[in-house]
């Protein structure tokens, strides 16, 4: 059920300053149900800051984040570093976060997520003992414990091997197809082109591009189907001002 319609989430003029450093400088962004937005940008561009503000982890110095009328603001947050209790088992982590999210039956939610994330073999294992890919699946499962309508992922595949990445994207595509809105940050232009229905490019805290992958190539003089190398070239033109 992919339903691109009215925006679920609208961010206006978001700014975040740390003393004399501006991490985010007037960013406007929208997120619709069933869409996947890739946040691209070099290190320090403000991707994590933007996702943290949208997730409610950090506060914006200025600007607003508004939810569509009648929509419960339920965000699933997948930080780059798994945010869980390593000495609790997979099942205990899921049960605890489901309970914290206010689930009426945390045990049922935990078992459902274990099944959906294919974590059955690891349910009784301490999170600290899980492999990187499994841990990231648990990290994502925890984010889903609260019946989120928006999923924000900070470089979810940065530490994963290709097969683990493939598996994770398979699950994320399923979620998106089910109507969930995704926004993920990545440093891989290829990943953004492949999995982002829209791409937002940040550079030095400013939004320098927002549009479809095709728009990115078109606006920078590279035709469709020019391949990953061409997309990277377009991205570099955006983030590196001409000498």
């Amino acid at each position, binding site marked *: 059920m992919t339903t691109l319609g009215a925006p679920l989430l609208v961010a206006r003029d978001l700014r975040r300053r740390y003393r004399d450093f501006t991490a985010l400088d007037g960013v406007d962004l929208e997120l619709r149900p069933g869409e996947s937005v890739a946040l691209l940008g070099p290190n320090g561009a403000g991707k994590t800051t933007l996702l943290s503000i949208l997730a409610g982890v950090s506060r914006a110095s200025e600007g607003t984040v508004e939810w569509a009328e009648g929509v419960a603001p339920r965000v699933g947050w997948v930080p780059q570093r798994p945010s869980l*209790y390593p000495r*609790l088992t997979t099942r205990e982590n899921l049960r605890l976060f489901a309970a914290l999210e206010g689930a009426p039956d945390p045990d049922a939610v935990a078992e459902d997520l274990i099944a959906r994330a294919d974590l059955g073999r690891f349910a009784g294992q301490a999170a600290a003992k899980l492999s990187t890919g499994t841990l990231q699946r648990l990290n994502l499962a925890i984010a889903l414990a609260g019946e989120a309508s928006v999923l924000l992922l900070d470089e979810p595949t940065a530490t994963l091997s290709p097969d683990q990445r493939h598996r994770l994207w398979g699950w994320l595509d399923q979620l998106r197809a089910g109507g969930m809105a995704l926004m993920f940050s990545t440093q891989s232009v290829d990943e953004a082109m492949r999995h982002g229905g829209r791409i937002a490019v940040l550079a030095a805290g400013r939004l320098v591009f927002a549009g479809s992958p095709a728009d990115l190539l078109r606006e920078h003089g590279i035709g469709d189907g020019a391949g990953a190398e061409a997309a990277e070239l377009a991205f570099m033109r955006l983030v590196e001002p001409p000498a």
Partner: protein
Amino acid sequence: MRAAGLLFLKDARLLRRTPALLLVLVAYPLLVALLVALALQSDERKPDVGLVVLDTSGRSVQVGDRRLSIDDYVDRLSDDVNVRELSPEAARTALDDGRVAAVLTIPEGFIADLQSGVRPPALELTASRRSPIQSDAIERRLEAAVYRLNQSLATGYVEQVLQLVDLVTEGGELGIFGRSGDALGLRRSRELVLSVQAQLRRAGEAAAARRLAPLLNFIDETQSNLDLARPAANAIRSPIELHVSEAEEGREPLSAFGFAGALLVSLGLAGVLLAAAAMASEREEGALARLRRGLIASPALVAEKMAFTAAACLIVGLLLLGGVAIFTSLTVGRWGLWLVALILSGLAFGAFGVLAGALARETRTALLVALMLALPLLALGLLPDAEVAAAISEAVPFGPAFDAFQTLLVEPAIPAGDLTLTLGHLALLAAVFGGLATWAVSRRAAD
């Protein structure tokens, strides 16, 4: 509240799942309590004092029924300090090198001056400047030793004076203050005068007999005055007496101080470190960011860590008190008040630890910060007589916690009302540090 309860259970589960930490949490306070109690209850070590004896006369002085020489005096000093007899040069070198904390010099003619009574003999004390605290302690010890010796000598002198009074009254053989001979005595003098008067009257010399009346009056007056000499001399010998009674069981102040100190150090350290680690690990494991997304508010998170620490302090504290009640002569009464004191102390230690944990970015740093803050403040808590130390210690949880523990151990039957102020102080500090910790957690979560 529900979220705080869930995290409380999670923390308890994690603690139970880490046997090494659990063992440390119980064994460490027990060990610290034992060491602190032993340290605080053991006698102070006698300081080393150099003794320079310049009176080489070898004389001794008879005081009352005993004879006092330099050696006797040195023996008496040895009760209070470790005496090392040295030459003047060796004593100076030892003082400079720090091998002795002070040098006591017995001057030339000490015994002769003591014997003559013309001028009191003086001892000279030179204390090291290396340690003012130790110098003060040695001065006090030697002052006490000289006072005791003076009292002993005064007793001897008074006894001699009273013997002299008896001799003047009753007459007899003279053998005091180095003098000997026969004394007539007032009583025999009176009898003699009365006998002479009677003989004179019988011989018709009434006028001559009357002339002896003033002598008789003098003898009577002198006798009356001498009758007052004994109580007066006794009063001079010891104007104020100090009666030291054996403390009742369970009311040994030194033991109470020792165990209160042990409880403070063990619970204070365990509580502060546990809270700091619990808070910092939420952050280090990355869970804090997820929690702060509306799953739990900062005040509730801080309250949960405080409650967790208080529960741990309560269990460890009750274990320690059980040990005290079973294995020592101290009486542990008012268990209800103990529960309140342990819970409030745990909450205050927890708030202090959470603040340290929230200020640090990593668990190891948090533990180090908590330890570095707690250790000196705990030490200040044990020095309540120093004004500045007391003021600082009362501004952190350790001072009032120590007050509460000490009061409950010294006065096992204390009425609840007498502890209200101390317990209120602890509750206030728990609230203040809890507020500061909440501010720090909010700031960290927003970073």
